[in-house]
């Protein structure tokens, strides 16, 4: 029976403007956590704000879990204002996580904005596999972050920014297109804003490469009970279905997902 985990914060720093790295003690009896899974965190001290906030796990260590949190509203603001030594009430691990049972060995990992956060543990785990070549492409709207963390696990890494000149200036999907023309890849993992994921999905289909997308949707329970977080997916040839992003996802294969508009 899962419990209410109240975890001590062992570290909290603002790694770049507005983004905090929060490390908490991992509860001893917490089951296995997979890359791509998330936790649903209580952000306030009291019962306000009402709902938990879904946050992906960014690094899983023996003793700790690391989250990267972008202050975009009330809840994330409150979470980031918690000090070392204080506690966070977490529910999880939730969702399905990435499927790492892949055999082929040329892998592309594409992240956009805060979407880079959950890819770090993924890249770490991929880097431990034999015979896998990993290329990481990270896109930012402005100043890059977490790049050094990725470099711990991979050498082949490209940084794009919409505002500044790094490896590429513009959307990360542009160098991605290039890359797919230059080299044959066997698998793509991606996380980022919806428009980016849509492009990645399409590129995957054009190039006949399986794509795993970590999707975000507004959630309440995060555990499959309320059906508010649905993602539109293919069902058979012509039909479609709404499935729960929190339970059947948040990782979906690109070929399943239907992006409306």
């Amino acid at each position, binding site marked *: *029976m*899962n419990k*209410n985990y109240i975890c001590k914060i062992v570290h909290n720093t603002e790694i770049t403007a507005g983004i905090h790295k929060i490390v908490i003690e991992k509860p001893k009896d917490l089951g296995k956590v997979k890359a791509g899974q998330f936790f649903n965190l*209580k952000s306030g001290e009291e*019962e*306000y*704000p*009402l*709902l*938990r906030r879904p946050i992906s796990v960014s690094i899983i260590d023996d003793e700790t879990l690391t989250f990267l949190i972008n202050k975009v509203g009330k809840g994330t603001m409150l979470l980031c204002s918690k000090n070392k030594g204080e506690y966070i009430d977490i*529910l999880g691990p939730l969702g399905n996580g990435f499927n790492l049972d892949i055999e082929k060995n040329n892998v592309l990992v594409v992240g956009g904005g805060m979407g880079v956060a959950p890819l770090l543990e993924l890249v770490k785990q991929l880097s431990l596999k034999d015979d896998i070549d990993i290329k990481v492409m990270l896109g930012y709207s402005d100043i890059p972050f977490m790049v050094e963390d990725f470099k711990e696990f991979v050498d082949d890494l490209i940084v794009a920014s919409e505002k500044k000149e790094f490896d590429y200036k513009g959307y990360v999907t542009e160098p991605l297109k290039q890359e797919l023309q230059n080299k044959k890849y066997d698998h793509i993992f991606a996380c980022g804003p919806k428009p980016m994921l849509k492009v990645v999905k399409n590129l995957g289909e054009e190039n006949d490469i399986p794509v795993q997308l970590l999707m975000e*949707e*507004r*959630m*309440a*329970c995060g*555990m*499959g*009970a*309320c*059906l*508010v*977080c*649905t*993602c*539109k997916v293919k069902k058979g040839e012509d039909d479609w*279905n*709404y499935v729960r992003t929190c*339970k059947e996802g948040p990782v979906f294969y690109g070929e399943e997902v239907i992006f*409306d508009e």
Partner: protein
Amino acid sequence: MSRVDLKVDLNGLTLKNPVTVASGTFGFGREFTDYLDLNILGGIMVKGLTLEERKGNPTPRVSETPMGMINSVGLQNPGVEYFVKEELPFLKQFDTKVIVNINGNTIEEYCKIAEILSKTSVDSMELNISCPNVKRGGVSFGREPEMVYEVTNKVRQYCDKHLIVKLSPNVKDIKEIAIAAEKGGADCISLINTVIGMAIDIENQTTVLARGMGGLSGPAIKPIAVRMVYEAANSVSIPVIGMGGIMNYRDAIEFFLAGANAISIGTANLINPWVAREVIDGIKEYIKTKGYGSIKEIIGKVRIPSL
């Protein structure tokens, strides 16, 4: 001996304790087995069912509001037949009452579902005449006493089980609605369903929910719910299941004092999936501490100081 008697009789449906979980916030129970022993619950109201499978509304379907949430799930469900085949056997493993929340676009659909479920092992049916997320029908059923009477009365003829009618708070006078349900043949009423609400994203200048409006639930609506339960319980002689914003045992006690014979936990399940256990324990403790022997002793006990 300080054993506390939590049993309640809802006019033909006996719950071993007065704590149930509300429709739409507990799925078909499966997701909660990791967090809660379902055997401890008085009853489970399952996700609202329709005759045919329903896909529900586009996303976003949820918006947080001050101490509340608005949802527009739109009755996504696999249809009553699927439920009976795939979900009911699972639920029947547990020592708790299975209460099926039923929904229709027409009175005929309600009757059809009631007829189907009457032949199964469900313990009770909860007639949802108030879901604000269904475009056709739905709302109108629950807002006028005449319609409430009519739909209850018709469904009664097809329902061989215990029948609960779930009331909408989006009405002029909950008392006349409660009376209509009683007259129509309900064994019990439950209230409140969600209050219709809207939230706007001022950056995009769109509603937060893709569908525009949705149902407001959670602590924000608790004062409305307690008031309506009080009014309804004082207007009918059938039992009342109270709900709306119950987060802990103290909230639950408010509903009992207001006149609820049982309560249902909704939104709180989405935040703390084990909350029902805490509520049951807290109620027991309260009854004991206050020197009562049974939950029945506090039902409807609230006093209005100026009266």
